[in-house]
């Protein structure tokens, strides 16, 4: 059951993640923000969901609406969790804001049987063209902040992320890129096209 207004109220990457997650599973949402994904998963998939969020205000708002969320930090707190504690460890649009993306991804793969990561694609044509033609750090709808105000410390392209998965010996179970209109790019298209046309991407990974 979706919130009034239907699926259009939800972020496209959230809807895709909700499609990937099996009903009744255990889910950890790292960087859960206002809890929108956890709420969506609770409402539609009856998951046993937990969240970690760095902002105290957002944590308190999440708990006040009945979600199980702790104040914490992906870089510092993931080491607390045991191996295979969750069916899915999710990091949605957060990896680029971590201090050590590699360590964070390793923890996700260790904690969850599946790791699901979504991120803004720095290889998108709009980003490339802003940098090429203006000579300045791109500011787009997906990357709205000026370089000095941005929480993003480690931006990457879809190709970069795929390389990291290879480096960590993670199996890519599924990879989906969305264009600016929020439509999925065809899986038959080559990686180079995804990297150029995809505004954000969602990867579902497992340990080999």
């Amino acid at each position, binding site marked *: 059951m979706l919130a009034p207004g239907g699926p259009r109220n939800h972020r496209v990457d959230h809807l895709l993640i909700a499609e990937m997650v099996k009903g009744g599973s*255990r889910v950890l949402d790292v960087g859960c923000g206002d809890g929108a994904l956890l709420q969506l998963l609770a409402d539609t998939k009856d998951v*046993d969901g*937990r969240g970690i969020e760095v902002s*105290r205000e957002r*944590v*308190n708002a*999440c*708990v*006040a*609406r*009945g*979600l*199980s*969320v*702790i*104040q*914490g930090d992906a870089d510092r*707190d993931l080491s*607390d*969790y*045991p191996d295979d*504690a*969750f069916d899915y460890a999710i990091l949605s649009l957060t990896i680029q804001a971590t201090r050590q993306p590699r360590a964070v991804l390793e923890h996700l793969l260790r904690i969850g049987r599946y790791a699901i990561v979504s991120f803004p694609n720095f290889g998108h044509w709009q980003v490339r063209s802003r940098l090429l033609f203006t000579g300045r750090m791109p500011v787009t709808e997906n990357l709205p902040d000026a370089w000095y105000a941005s929480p993003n410390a480690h931006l990457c392209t879809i190709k970069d992320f795929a390389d990291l998965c290879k480096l960590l010996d993670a199996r890519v179970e599924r990879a989906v890129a969305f264009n600016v209109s929020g439509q999925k790019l065809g899986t038959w298209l080559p990686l180079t096209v995804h990297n150029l046309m995809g505004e954000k991407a969602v990867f579902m990974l497992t340990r080999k």
Partner: protein
Amino acid sequence: MNTATTRDFLAADARTLEVNRPSSASLDVRTPLKLDSGRTLNSYRIAYQTYGTLNADKSNAILVTHALTGDQYAASHHPVTGKPGWWETLVGPGKPIDTERFFIICPNVLGGCMGSTGPASLNPETSKPWGLDFPVITVGDMVDAQIPLIDHFGIDQLFCAIGGSMGGMQVLAWAARHKERLFSAVPVATAAWHSSQNIAFHEVGRQAVMADPDWAQGRYLELGKEPRNGLAVARMAAHITYLSEEALQRKFGRNLQDLAAKSFSFNADFQVESYLRHQGSTFVDRFDANSYLYITRAIDYFDLRAEYGDVLANAFKDTRTRFCVVSFTSDWLYPTRESREIVQALNAVAANVSFVEIESDKGHDAFLLEEPEMFATISGFLNAGAAKRGLKAARS
């Protein structure tokens, strides 16, 4: 007899009556209680208050556990002081701990002085007050002593145990010792072990009591005396730890009390002095000095890590309890990092845990005060748990 002594006498009388004949309900337990010290308490009494109604399948019970100087009067007037309940902001009809939906049980702890068996109670073997013959107890003992009360109501599993400070320690001990009987737990402004600094403050308080000649080696009740001065000083020192520098400065600054200028004496010139003296003197009207010694000792001994092989996570192994840990930014008695340690241990066993730190400048005492963010957190957590357990939803 001057007025001060008359007042002391009357207050002491009202209080002494509560020790052996509490105004609240009480349960006499005849099953011996094996204490952590190795000693056994053959029989004891637990005085308690309840609010709300237990539902037919007995699934809506919330245990409210009190702090060091608290008692069972969480949401009703105190029989000695006449003051409102200590958690009336939180417990009541339509409040976060909603008496229209939940059945609330608040017991006076073992070792207390408001009707549960403690050092001021009569020792059945001697018919004299226990005094220092009362066994040293632990927070775990307090919790074990509450089990017969839960059984008495026929409750298999509490919907929730909630409490702040030492109340939070009881919640943690419940979660560790009786995990299958606890659906959810809210430890507020607390820690899994009492720090060296906190033990140090307690020791100052105990020494103040014991240095008072009227303490008489703990036999003051038999001798018709009372270590009022010692206990008042203990309370004054402790009270400072419940506040924050910022709150004290804001409330009192360097303001003088009813004076145009300094008196160049040792009278209570400053408002903060007069406030503390008032806290000290009103406290002795309602509390027993030996109880204060025993309960502070129980808190000092609290170390859930040590009880579980020096690994806190072991205390929560295989837990199915849902947790909501709450701390306050300006609480330096049980700082946020100590709550975070509890959260880390719970994460290590992949427990269902929420953790919020509430922004407040009111220090440790914030948990007893009007804190809308804490109220929203606790309501949200309880409502989500109630929905999972199939309990009645809140009035909208």
